[in-house]
Protein backbone atom coordinates (compact mmCIF):
# COMPACT_ATOMS: atom_id res chain seq x y z
CA UNK A 1 0.00 0.00 0.00
CA UNK A 2 1.47 3.31 -0.96
CA UNK A 3 -1.43 5.68 -0.59
CA UNK A 4 -1.77 8.42 1.91
CA UNK A 5 -4.44 10.22 3.87
CA UNK A 6 -4.34 13.96 4.30
CA UNK A 7 -2.85 14.34 7.79
CA UNK A 8 -5.97 15.55 9.51
CA UNK A 9 -8.62 13.87 11.59
CA UNK A 10 -12.19 13.73 10.46
CA UNK A 11 -14.82 14.69 12.98
CA UNK A 12 -15.87 11.05 13.17
CA UNK A 13 -12.34 9.85 13.82
CA UNK A 14 -11.92 12.57 16.42
CA UNK A 15 -15.08 11.49 18.21
CA UNK A 16 -14.01 7.86 18.08
CA UNK A 17 -10.78 8.72 19.84
CA UNK A 18 -13.04 9.76 22.68
CA UNK A 19 -11.54 10.59 26.02
CA UNK A 20 -7.96 10.55 24.82
CA UNK A 21 -8.29 14.21 23.82
CA UNK A 22 -4.90 15.38 25.04
CA UNK A 23 -3.08 12.97 22.75
CA UNK A 24 -5.76 12.62 20.09
CA UNK A 25 -4.09 14.75 17.43
CA UNK A 26 -0.84 12.85 17.91
CA UNK A 27 -2.43 9.41 17.38
CA UNK A 28 -2.83 8.59 13.72
CA UNK A 29 -5.51 6.18 12.61
CA UNK A 30 -4.02 2.80 11.80
CA UNK A 31 -4.28 3.04 8.04
CA UNK A 32 -1.48 2.72 5.52
CA UNK A 33 0.80 5.73 5.07
CA UNK A 34 3.76 6.25 2.78
CA UNK A 35 7.02 7.84 3.91
CA UNK A 36 6.55 10.77 1.53
CA UNK A 37 3.00 11.99 1.02
CA UNK A 38 1.66 11.49 -2.49
CA UNK A 39 -0.39 14.35 -3.95
CA UNK A 40 -4.07 14.08 -3.08
CA UNK A 41 -6.07 12.18 -5.66
CA UNK A 42 -8.36 14.17 -7.91
CA UNK A 43 -12.03 13.21 -8.25
CA UNK A 44 -12.89 11.29 -11.41
CA UNK A 45 -16.22 11.63 -13.20
CA UNK A 46 -18.06 9.22 -15.48
CA UNK A 47 -21.28 9.42 -17.46
CA UNK A 48 -24.00 6.82 -17.44
CA UNK A 49 -27.58 6.22 -18.51
CA UNK A 50 -30.19 4.30 -16.56
CA UNK A 51 -33.94 3.83 -16.62
CA UNK A 52 -35.33 4.89 -13.28
CA UNK A 53 -39.01 4.20 -12.67
CA UNK A 54 -39.48 3.89 -16.42
CA UNK A 55 -37.79 7.20 -17.26
CA UNK A 56 -34.44 7.40 -19.08
CA UNK A 57 -31.84 9.33 -17.07
CA UNK A 58 -28.37 10.48 -18.06
CA UNK A 59 -25.96 11.44 -15.32
CA UNK A 60 -22.39 12.65 -14.98
CA UNK A 61 -21.15 11.54 -11.59
CA UNK A 62 -18.06 11.17 -9.46
CA UNK A 63 -17.12 7.49 -9.82
CA UNK A 64 -17.48 7.17 -6.04
CA UNK A 65 -21.22 7.91 -6.16
CA UNK A 66 -23.28 4.98 -4.93
CA UNK A 67 -26.55 4.11 -6.64
CA UNK A 68 -28.26 5.31 -3.45
CA UNK A 69 -26.64 8.76 -3.62
CA UNK A 70 -27.33 9.00 -7.37
CA UNK A 71 -31.03 8.39 -6.69
CA UNK A 72 -31.32 10.70 -3.72
CA UNK A 73 -28.86 13.52 -4.39
CA UNK A 74 -28.83 13.67 -8.19
CA UNK A 75 -32.29 12.45 -9.25
CA UNK A 76 -33.92 13.78 -6.06
CA UNK A 77 -35.82 10.54 -5.51
CA UNK A 78 -35.64 10.80 -1.74
CA UNK A 79 -38.10 8.00 -1.06
CA UNK A 80 -35.16 5.59 -0.90
CA UNK A 81 -33.55 6.08 2.51
CA UNK A 82 -29.98 6.06 3.74
CA UNK A 83 -29.80 4.23 7.04
CA UNK A 84 -26.43 2.64 7.83
CA UNK A 85 -24.86 3.11 4.35
CA UNK A 86 -23.09 -0.24 4.88
CA UNK A 87 -25.61 -2.87 3.76
CA UNK A 88 -26.70 -3.77 7.26
CA UNK A 89 -30.14 -2.16 7.58
CA UNK A 90 -31.91 -2.51 4.22
CA UNK A 91 -33.42 1.02 4.23
CA UNK A 92 -31.85 1.66 0.81
CA UNK A 93 -33.37 -1.42 -0.87
CA UNK A 94 -34.39 -0.83 -4.49
CA UNK A 95 -35.21 -3.20 -7.32
CA UNK A 96 -32.63 -3.30 -10.14
CA UNK A 97 -33.36 -5.38 -13.23
CA UNK A 98 -36.04 -7.22 -11.26
CA UNK A 99 -33.94 -7.95 -8.17
CA UNK A 100 -33.79 -6.25 -4.78
CA UNK A 101 -30.37 -4.95 -3.80
CA UNK A 102 -28.83 -2.60 -1.24
CA UNK A 103 -28.35 0.56 -3.30
CA UNK A 104 -25.73 1.81 -0.82
CA UNK A 105 -23.34 -1.04 -1.65
CA UNK A 106 -23.13 -0.58 -5.38
CA UNK A 107 -21.70 2.18 -7.54
CA UNK A 108 -24.02 4.06 -9.88
CA UNK A 109 -21.44 3.71 -12.66
CA UNK A 110 -21.79 -0.09 -12.46
CA UNK A 111 -25.41 0.21 -13.60
CA UNK A 112 -25.13 1.50 -17.14
CA UNK A 113 -28.39 0.61 -18.92
CA UNK A 114 -30.02 -0.81 -15.77
CA UNK A 115 -33.72 -0.59 -14.98
CA UNK A 116 -34.15 0.73 -11.45
CA UNK A 117 -37.42 0.76 -9.52
CA UNK A 118 -37.65 2.80 -6.33
CA UNK A 119 -40.59 3.25 -3.97
CA UNK A 120 -41.71 6.18 -6.15
CA UNK A 121 -41.96 3.78 -9.10
CA UNK A 122 -44.09 1.17 -7.34
CA UNK A 123 -47.13 3.31 -6.76
CA UNK A 124 -48.39 6.86 -6.25
CA UNK A 125 -50.40 8.41 -3.41
CA UNK A 126 -53.44 8.21 -5.70
CA UNK A 127 -52.75 4.68 -6.90
CA UNK A 128 -50.88 2.69 -4.27
CA UNK A 129 -49.10 -0.56 -5.08
CA UNK A 130 -50.94 -3.40 -3.28
CA UNK A 131 -47.94 -3.79 -0.95
CA UNK A 132 -48.05 -0.10 -0.06
CA UNK A 133 -51.80 -0.34 0.60
CA UNK A 134 -51.28 -3.42 2.79
CA UNK A 135 -48.57 -1.69 4.86
CA UNK A 136 -51.01 1.21 5.46
CA UNK A 137 -53.89 -1.14 6.29
CA UNK A 138 -51.83 -3.24 8.73
CA UNK A 139 -49.90 -0.32 10.23
CA UNK A 140 -46.61 -1.90 9.12
CA UNK A 141 -44.50 0.99 10.41
CA UNK A 142 -44.21 3.63 13.08
CA UNK A 143 -41.65 6.28 12.10
CA UNK A 144 -41.68 5.13 8.47
CA UNK A 145 -37.98 5.55 7.78
CA UNK A 146 -37.34 1.90 6.91
CA UNK A 147 -40.68 1.54 5.11
CA UNK A 148 -39.66 2.27 1.48
CA UNK A 149 -36.91 -0.35 1.79
CA UNK A 150 -39.28 -2.77 3.53
CA UNK A 151 -41.86 -2.40 0.75
CA UNK A 152 -39.36 -2.74 -2.12
CA UNK A 153 -37.91 -5.78 -0.37
CA UNK A 154 -41.34 -7.30 0.27
CA UNK A 155 -42.41 -6.95 -3.36
CA UNK A 156 -39.20 -8.72 -4.43
CA UNK A 157 -39.55 -11.42 -1.74
CA UNK A 158 -42.87 -12.55 -3.20
CA UNK A 159 -41.28 -12.66 -6.65
CA UNK A 160 -38.37 -14.71 -5.25
CA UNK A 161 -40.75 -17.23 -3.71
CA UNK A 162 -42.69 -17.34 -6.99
CA UNK A 163 -39.40 -17.95 -8.82
CA UNK A 164 -38.64 -20.87 -6.47
CA UNK A 165 -35.56 -19.38 -4.81
CA UNK A 166 -34.90 -21.35 -1.60
CA UNK A 167 -34.28 -19.81 1.82
CA UNK A 168 -32.63 -20.78 5.10
CA UNK A 169 -35.97 -22.03 6.47
CA UNK A 170 -37.03 -24.00 3.39
CA UNK A 171 -37.75 -27.56 4.54
CA UNK A 172 -36.77 -29.42 1.41
CA UNK A 173 -34.54 -28.08 -1.33
CA UNK A 174 -36.22 -30.15 -4.00
CA UNK A 175 -39.79 -28.96 -3.45
CA UNK A 176 -40.94 -25.54 -4.57
CA UNK A 177 -40.57 -22.58 -2.25
CA UNK A 178 -43.85 -21.44 -0.71
CA UNK A 179 -45.19 -18.55 1.33
CA UNK A 180 -45.44 -18.78 5.11
CA UNK A 181 -44.91 -16.37 7.98
CA UNK A 182 -41.63 -18.14 8.78
CA UNK A 183 -40.46 -17.77 5.18
CA UNK A 184 -41.39 -14.07 5.14
CA UNK A 185 -39.55 -13.40 8.40
CA UNK A 186 -36.39 -15.14 7.16
CA UNK A 187 -36.44 -13.51 3.75
CA UNK A 188 -37.06 -10.04 5.21
CA UNK A 189 -34.18 -10.32 7.72
CA UNK A 190 -32.07 -7.85 5.72
CA UNK A 191 -34.57 -5.07 6.52
CA UNK A 192 -34.28 -3.75 10.04
CA UNK A 193 -37.15 -1.83 11.71
CA UNK A 194 -36.02 -0.21 14.93
CA UNK A 195 -39.60 0.75 15.79
CA UNK A 196 -40.31 -2.98 15.86
CA UNK A 197 -43.26 -3.09 13.48
CA UNK A 198 -42.25 -6.58 12.36
CA UNK A 199 -45.45 -8.44 13.23
CA UNK A 200 -47.56 -5.97 11.24
CA UNK A 201 -45.09 -6.06 8.35
CA UNK A 202 -45.45 -9.86 8.21
CA UNK A 203 -49.25 -9.49 8.22
CA UNK A 204 -49.15 -6.97 5.39
CA UNK A 205 -46.89 -9.15 3.22
CA UNK A 206 -48.92 -12.29 4.03
CA UNK A 207 -52.10 -10.56 2.90
CA UNK A 208 -50.58 -9.53 -0.44
CA UNK A 209 -49.14 -13.02 -0.88
CA UNK A 210 -52.56 -14.55 -0.18
CA UNK A 211 -54.33 -12.38 -2.70
CA UNK A 212 -51.70 -13.23 -5.33
CA UNK A 213 -51.94 -16.98 -4.77
Amino acid at each position, binding site marked *: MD*TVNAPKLSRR*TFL*KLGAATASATAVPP*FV*ARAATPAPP*RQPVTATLSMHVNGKPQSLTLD*TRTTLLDALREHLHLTGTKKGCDHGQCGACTVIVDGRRINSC*LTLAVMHEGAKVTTIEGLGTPQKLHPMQAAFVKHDGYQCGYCTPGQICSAVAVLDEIHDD*IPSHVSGSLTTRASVSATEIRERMSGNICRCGAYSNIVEAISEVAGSKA
Partner: protein
Amino acid sequence: MKPFTYERATSPASAASAAARQRNTKFIAGGTNLLDLMKLEIEQPEHLIDVNGLDLDTIAATEDGGLRIGALVRNTDLAADARVRRDYGLLTRALVAGASGQLRNKATTAGNLLQRTRCPYFYDTNQACNKRLPGSGCAAIGGFSRSHGIVGVSTSCIATHPSDMAVAMRALDATVETVQPDGKTRRIPIADFHTLPGATPHIENVLAPGELITAVTLPKPPGGTHIYHKVRDRASYAFALISVAAVVQKDGSGRVALGGVAHKPWRVEAAEAALPQGAKTVTATLLAGAQPTGENAFKIPLVERTLSAVLAEARG
Protein backbone atom coordinates in the same frame (compact mmCIF):
# COMPACT_ATOMS: atom_id res chain seq x y z
CA MET B 1 -13.93 7.08 -0.02
CA LYS B 2 -10.77 7.97 -1.98
CA PRO B 3 -11.14 8.92 -5.66
CA PHE B 4 -10.47 6.17 -8.19
CA THR B 5 -10.50 5.68 -11.92
CA TYR B 6 -12.84 3.07 -13.36
CA GLU B 7 -12.93 0.79 -16.37
CA ARG B 8 -15.09 -2.08 -17.58
CA ALA B 9 -13.25 -5.30 -18.37
CA THR B 10 -13.66 -6.80 -21.83
CA SER B 11 -12.12 -10.24 -21.23
CA PRO B 12 -10.78 -12.14 -18.19
CA ALA B 13 -7.22 -12.18 -19.56
CA SER B 14 -7.19 -8.46 -20.39
CA ALA B 15 -8.67 -7.68 -16.96
CA ALA B 16 -5.88 -9.66 -15.28
CA SER B 17 -3.14 -8.00 -17.30
CA ALA B 18 -4.66 -4.53 -16.74
CA ALA B 19 -4.82 -5.19 -13.00
CA ALA B 20 -1.16 -6.21 -12.89
CA ARG B 21 -0.12 -3.20 -15.01
CA GLN B 22 -1.78 -0.47 -12.95
CA ARG B 23 -0.82 0.03 -9.36
CA ASN B 24 -3.25 -0.41 -6.50
CA THR B 25 -6.03 -1.88 -8.65
CA LYS B 26 -9.00 -3.94 -7.51
CA PHE B 27 -11.56 -5.95 -9.42
CA ILE B 28 -15.16 -5.15 -8.53
CA ALA B 29 -18.10 -7.51 -9.10
CA GLY B 30 -20.89 -7.50 -6.51
CA GLY B 31 -19.05 -4.84 -4.54
CA THR B 32 -20.92 -5.66 -1.33
CA ASN B 33 -17.70 -6.15 0.66
CA LEU B 34 -15.25 -3.97 -1.28
CA LEU B 35 -17.41 -0.81 -1.24
CA ASP B 36 -18.12 -1.25 2.45
CA LEU B 37 -14.34 -1.32 3.06
CA MET B 38 -13.70 1.58 0.64
CA LYS B 39 -16.16 3.78 2.50
CA LEU B 40 -14.19 3.13 5.67
CA GLU B 41 -10.93 3.71 3.73
CA ILE B 42 -9.69 0.30 4.79
CA GLU B 43 -9.43 -0.42 1.08
CA GLN B 44 -8.17 2.53 -1.00
CA PRO B 45 -7.85 1.34 -4.60
CA GLU B 46 -6.73 3.92 -7.15
CA HIS B 47 -8.31 2.02 -10.01
CA LEU B 48 -11.34 -0.29 -10.23
CA ILE B 49 -11.87 -2.85 -12.97
CA ASP B 50 -15.56 -3.72 -13.20
CA VAL B 51 -15.75 -7.38 -14.23
CA ASN B 52 -19.54 -7.60 -14.24
CA GLY B 53 -19.75 -7.57 -18.03
CA LEU B 54 -17.60 -10.69 -18.44
CA ASP B 55 -19.20 -13.90 -19.63
CA LEU B 56 -18.59 -15.75 -16.35
CA ASP B 57 -22.12 -16.03 -15.01
CA THR B 58 -23.24 -19.51 -15.99
CA ILE B 59 -23.25 -22.92 -14.30
CA ALA B 60 -22.36 -25.80 -16.62
CA ALA B 61 -21.91 -29.55 -16.28
CA THR B 62 -18.31 -30.77 -16.53
CA GLU B 63 -17.11 -33.87 -18.38
CA ASP B 64 -16.41 -35.74 -15.15
CA GLY B 65 -19.98 -35.29 -13.91
CA GLY B 66 -19.37 -32.21 -11.77
CA LEU B 67 -20.31 -28.55 -12.14
CA ARG B 68 -18.36 -25.52 -13.29
CA ILE B 69 -19.67 -22.39 -11.57
CA GLY B 70 -18.75 -19.11 -13.25
CA ALA B 71 -17.02 -16.56 -11.00
CA LEU B 72 -19.86 -14.08 -11.50
CA VAL B 73 -22.73 -16.43 -10.66
CA ARG B 74 -24.65 -14.61 -7.95
CA ASN B 75 -25.11 -16.33 -4.60
CA THR B 76 -28.90 -16.35 -5.14
CA ASP B 77 -28.58 -18.08 -8.52
CA LEU B 78 -26.09 -20.63 -7.24
CA ALA B 79 -28.32 -21.48 -4.28
CA ALA B 80 -31.39 -21.79 -6.53
CA ASP B 81 -29.81 -23.93 -9.27
CA ALA B 82 -31.72 -27.21 -9.55
CA ARG B 83 -28.54 -29.31 -9.94
CA VAL B 84 -26.94 -27.70 -6.89
CA ARG B 85 -30.08 -28.23 -4.82
CA ARG B 86 -30.32 -31.87 -5.84
CA ASP B 87 -26.65 -32.94 -5.81
CA TYR B 88 -24.81 -30.40 -3.65
CA GLY B 89 -27.48 -29.45 -1.10
CA LEU B 90 -24.72 -28.54 1.34
CA LEU B 91 -23.77 -25.61 -0.90
CA THR B 92 -27.32 -24.26 -1.17
CA ARG B 93 -27.78 -24.60 2.61
CA ALA B 94 -24.55 -22.71 3.28
CA LEU B 95 -25.40 -19.96 0.81
CA VAL B 96 -28.88 -19.27 2.16
CA ALA B 97 -27.49 -19.27 5.72
CA GLY B 98 -25.33 -16.27 4.80
CA ALA B 99 -26.04 -12.55 4.45
CA SER B 100 -29.47 -11.25 3.38
CA GLY B 101 -31.59 -11.67 0.27
CA GLN B 102 -30.43 -8.28 -1.02
CA LEU B 103 -26.76 -9.11 -0.56
CA ARG B 104 -27.07 -12.59 -2.08
CA ASN B 105 -28.59 -11.02 -5.19
CA LYS B 106 -25.37 -9.04 -5.73
CA ALA B 107 -22.62 -11.14 -4.14
CA THR B 108 -20.72 -13.39 -6.54
CA THR B 109 -19.11 -16.81 -6.21
CA ALA B 110 -15.56 -15.45 -6.53
CA GLY B 111 -16.26 -12.44 -4.34
CA ASN B 112 -17.66 -14.66 -1.61
CA LEU B 113 -14.37 -16.60 -1.53
CA LEU B 114 -12.42 -13.33 -1.35
CA GLN B 115 -14.48 -11.53 1.27
CA ARG B 116 -12.50 -10.20 4.16
CA THR B 117 -12.81 -10.86 7.86
CA ARG B 118 -15.48 -9.16 9.97
CA CYS B 119 -13.08 -8.81 12.91
CA PRO B 120 -14.24 -5.54 14.52
CA TYR B 121 -10.63 -4.46 15.05
CA PHE B 122 -9.94 -4.83 11.33
CA TYR B 123 -12.90 -2.51 10.69
CA ASP B 124 -11.94 0.13 13.27
CA THR B 125 -9.08 2.20 11.85
CA ASN B 126 -8.28 3.56 15.30
CA GLN B 127 -7.23 0.09 16.40
CA ALA B 128 -4.04 -1.80 15.69
CA CYS B 129 -4.49 -4.53 13.08
CA ASN B 130 -1.75 -6.46 11.32
CA LYS B 131 -4.18 -7.41 8.58
CA ARG B 132 -5.07 -3.80 7.78
CA LEU B 133 -1.65 -2.30 8.46
CA PRO B 134 1.13 -4.91 8.72
CA GLY B 135 3.31 -4.43 11.78
CA SER B 136 0.80 -2.32 13.72
CA GLY B 137 -0.14 -5.12 16.13
CA CYS B 138 -3.35 -7.00 16.90
CA ALA B 139 -5.94 -5.38 19.13
CA ALA B 140 -8.10 -8.52 19.07
CA ILE B 141 -5.51 -10.48 21.05
CA GLY B 142 -6.32 -9.40 24.59
CA GLY B 143 -9.41 -7.56 23.32
CA PHE B 144 -13.02 -8.63 22.87
CA SER B 145 -12.41 -11.91 21.07
CA ARG B 146 -15.62 -13.87 21.45
CA SER B 147 -16.08 -14.20 17.70
CA HIS B 148 -12.46 -14.93 16.82
CA GLY B 149 -10.50 -17.96 15.69
CA ILE B 150 -9.41 -20.88 17.85
CA VAL B 151 -7.30 -22.97 15.45
CA GLY B 152 -4.55 -21.99 13.03
CA VAL B 153 -4.23 -18.63 14.79
CA SER B 154 -0.93 -16.77 15.17
CA THR B 155 0.54 -14.14 17.45
CA SER B 156 -0.18 -11.64 14.64
CA CYS B 157 -3.85 -12.37 13.98
CA ILE B 158 -6.80 -14.37 15.30
CA ALA B 159 -9.35 -13.28 12.67
CA THR B 160 -11.75 -15.76 11.05
CA HIS B 161 -12.83 -16.15 7.45
CA PRO B 162 -16.49 -15.09 7.34
CA SER B 163 -17.80 -17.12 4.40
CA ASP B 164 -20.40 -19.87 4.72
CA MET B 165 -20.18 -20.79 1.03
CA ALA B 166 -16.44 -21.45 1.22
CA VAL B 167 -16.93 -23.90 4.11
CA ALA B 168 -19.33 -25.97 2.00
CA MET B 169 -16.96 -25.78 -0.97
CA ARG B 170 -14.10 -27.00 1.22
CA ALA B 171 -16.16 -30.04 2.23
CA LEU B 172 -17.11 -30.59 -1.42
CA ASP B 173 -13.46 -30.52 -2.62
CA ALA B 174 -13.99 -27.58 -4.96
CA THR B 175 -11.26 -26.23 -7.24
CA VAL B 176 -10.71 -22.53 -7.98
CA GLU B 177 -9.89 -21.69 -11.60
CA THR B 178 -8.00 -18.49 -12.39
CA VAL B 179 -6.40 -16.54 -15.20
CA GLN B 180 -3.07 -14.84 -14.56
CA PRO B 181 -1.80 -11.54 -15.98
CA ASP B 182 0.29 -13.42 -18.56
CA GLY B 183 -2.87 -15.15 -19.81
CA LYS B 184 -2.02 -18.56 -18.31
CA THR B 185 -4.70 -20.34 -16.34
CA ARG B 186 -4.34 -22.43 -13.23
CA ARG B 187 -6.46 -24.63 -10.98
CA ILE B 188 -6.11 -24.31 -7.22
CA PRO B 189 -7.66 -26.91 -4.89
CA ILE B 190 -9.75 -24.99 -2.35
CA ALA B 191 -7.73 -26.64 0.44
CA ASP B 192 -4.72 -24.65 -0.80
CA PHE B 193 -6.55 -21.44 -1.73
CA HIS B 194 -6.94 -19.66 1.62
CA THR B 195 -3.92 -19.18 3.87
CA LEU B 196 -3.37 -19.11 7.61
CA PRO B 197 -2.38 -15.75 9.13
CA GLY B 198 1.14 -16.61 10.34
CA ALA B 199 3.24 -13.45 10.34
CA THR B 200 1.48 -12.09 7.22
CA PRO B 201 -2.25 -11.89 8.00
CA HIS B 202 -2.73 -9.27 5.25
CA ILE B 203 -2.22 -12.16 2.80
CA GLU B 204 -5.39 -14.24 2.78
CA ASN B 205 -5.07 -16.46 -0.27
CA VAL B 206 -2.55 -17.64 -2.85
CA LEU B 207 -3.70 -15.39 -5.72
CA ALA B 208 -0.88 -13.46 -7.40
CA PRO B 209 -1.27 -9.72 -8.10
CA GLY B 210 -3.75 -9.30 -10.95
CA GLU B 211 -4.81 -12.96 -10.94
CA LEU B 212 -8.56 -13.24 -11.57
CA ILE B 213 -10.86 -16.06 -10.49
CA THR B 214 -12.87 -17.28 -13.49
CA ALA B 215 -14.75 -20.25 -12.01
CA VAL B 216 -15.11 -22.73 -9.20
CA THR B 217 -15.54 -26.38 -10.15
CA LEU B 218 -17.15 -29.11 -8.09
CA PRO B 219 -16.25 -32.78 -8.62
CA LYS B 220 -19.03 -35.27 -9.25
CA PRO B 221 -21.72 -35.33 -6.55
CA PRO B 222 -20.57 -37.01 -3.31
CA GLY B 223 -24.00 -38.49 -2.48
CA GLY B 224 -24.96 -38.90 1.18
CA THR B 225 -26.85 -36.55 3.47
CA HIS B 226 -25.89 -32.88 3.26
CA ILE B 227 -26.18 -30.74 6.38
CA TYR B 228 -24.99 -27.19 7.08
CA HIS B 229 -25.56 -26.15 10.66
CA LYS B 230 -24.71 -22.54 11.50
CA VAL B 231 -24.71 -21.30 15.09
CA ARG B 232 -25.04 -17.54 15.46
CA ASP B 233 -26.29 -14.85 17.83
CA ARG B 234 -29.39 -14.07 15.71
CA ALA B 235 -31.66 -16.51 13.91
CA SER B 236 -30.90 -14.84 10.57
CA TYR B 237 -28.54 -12.34 8.96
CA ALA B 238 -25.55 -12.80 11.26
CA PHE B 239 -22.08 -14.23 10.85
CA ALA B 240 -21.36 -17.63 12.34
CA LEU B 241 -19.96 -18.18 15.79
CA ILE B 242 -19.22 -21.61 14.38
CA SER B 243 -20.68 -23.63 11.55
CA VAL B 244 -20.49 -27.30 10.61
CA ALA B 245 -20.70 -28.47 6.99
CA ALA B 246 -21.08 -32.20 6.67
CA VAL B 247 -21.69 -34.85 4.04
CA VAL B 248 -22.53 -38.13 5.78
CA GLN B 249 -22.91 -41.45 3.98
CA LYS B 250 -25.23 -44.28 5.03
CA ASP B 251 -22.31 -46.28 6.51
CA GLY B 252 -21.45 -43.35 8.79
CA SER B 253 -18.38 -42.24 6.87
CA GLY B 254 -18.23 -38.72 5.51
CA ARG B 255 -16.59 -35.29 5.50
CA VAL B 256 -16.73 -32.33 7.84
CA ALA B 257 -15.59 -28.71 7.49
CA LEU B 258 -15.96 -25.91 10.01
CA GLY B 259 -16.60 -22.20 9.68
CA GLY B 260 -16.03 -19.47 12.25
CA VAL B 261 -13.02 -21.12 13.87
CA ALA B 262 -10.06 -20.17 11.66
CA HIS B 263 -8.59 -17.84 9.06
CA LYS B 264 -9.83 -20.28 6.42
CA PRO B 265 -12.53 -22.94 6.11
CA TRP B 266 -11.28 -25.60 8.51
CA ARG B 267 -11.10 -29.24 7.49
CA VAL B 268 -8.82 -31.98 8.79
CA GLU B 269 -9.24 -35.04 6.58
CA ALA B 270 -7.55 -37.25 9.18
CA ALA B 271 -10.35 -36.49 11.64
CA GLU B 272 -13.01 -37.85 9.29
CA ALA B 273 -12.00 -41.49 9.74
CA ALA B 274 -13.40 -41.21 13.27
CA LEU B 275 -16.87 -40.06 12.13
CA PRO B 276 -18.54 -43.42 12.92
CA GLN B 277 -17.18 -43.09 16.47
CA GLY B 278 -19.03 -39.85 17.09
CA ALA B 279 -18.54 -36.13 17.53
CA LYS B 280 -16.23 -36.22 20.56
CA THR B 281 -13.50 -38.23 18.84
CA VAL B 282 -13.78 -36.27 15.60
CA THR B 283 -13.65 -32.91 17.37
CA ALA B 284 -10.56 -33.92 19.36
CA THR B 285 -8.62 -34.38 16.10
CA LEU B 286 -10.34 -31.57 14.21
CA LEU B 287 -9.48 -28.99 16.87
CA ALA B 288 -6.20 -30.53 18.11
CA GLY B 289 -3.81 -27.81 19.20
CA ALA B 290 -6.58 -25.21 19.49
CA GLN B 291 -5.49 -21.95 21.10
CA PRO B 292 -8.68 -20.22 22.16
CA THR B 293 -8.71 -16.93 24.06
CA GLY B 294 -10.52 -16.71 27.37
CA GLU B 295 -13.55 -15.35 25.54
CA ASN B 296 -13.92 -17.88 22.76
CA ALA B 297 -13.01 -21.18 24.44
CA PHE B 298 -16.74 -21.94 24.32
CA LYS B 299 -16.33 -22.64 20.61
CA ILE B 300 -14.63 -25.98 21.32
CA PRO B 301 -17.62 -27.61 23.09
CA LEU B 302 -19.91 -25.75 20.70
CA VAL B 303 -18.26 -27.46 17.73
CA GLU B 304 -18.54 -30.86 19.42
CA ARG B 305 -22.22 -30.42 20.29
CA THR B 306 -23.13 -29.00 16.89
CA LEU B 307 -21.33 -31.84 15.15
CA SER B 308 -23.13 -34.28 17.45
CA ALA B 309 -26.47 -32.74 16.41
CA VAL B 310 -25.47 -32.91 12.75
CA LEU B 311 -24.52 -36.59 12.99
CA ALA B 312 -27.78 -37.37 14.80
CA GLU B 313 -29.73 -35.58 12.06
CA ALA B 314 -27.81 -37.50 9.40
CA ARG B 315 -28.74 -40.81 11.05
CA GLY B 316 -32.37 -39.66 10.76
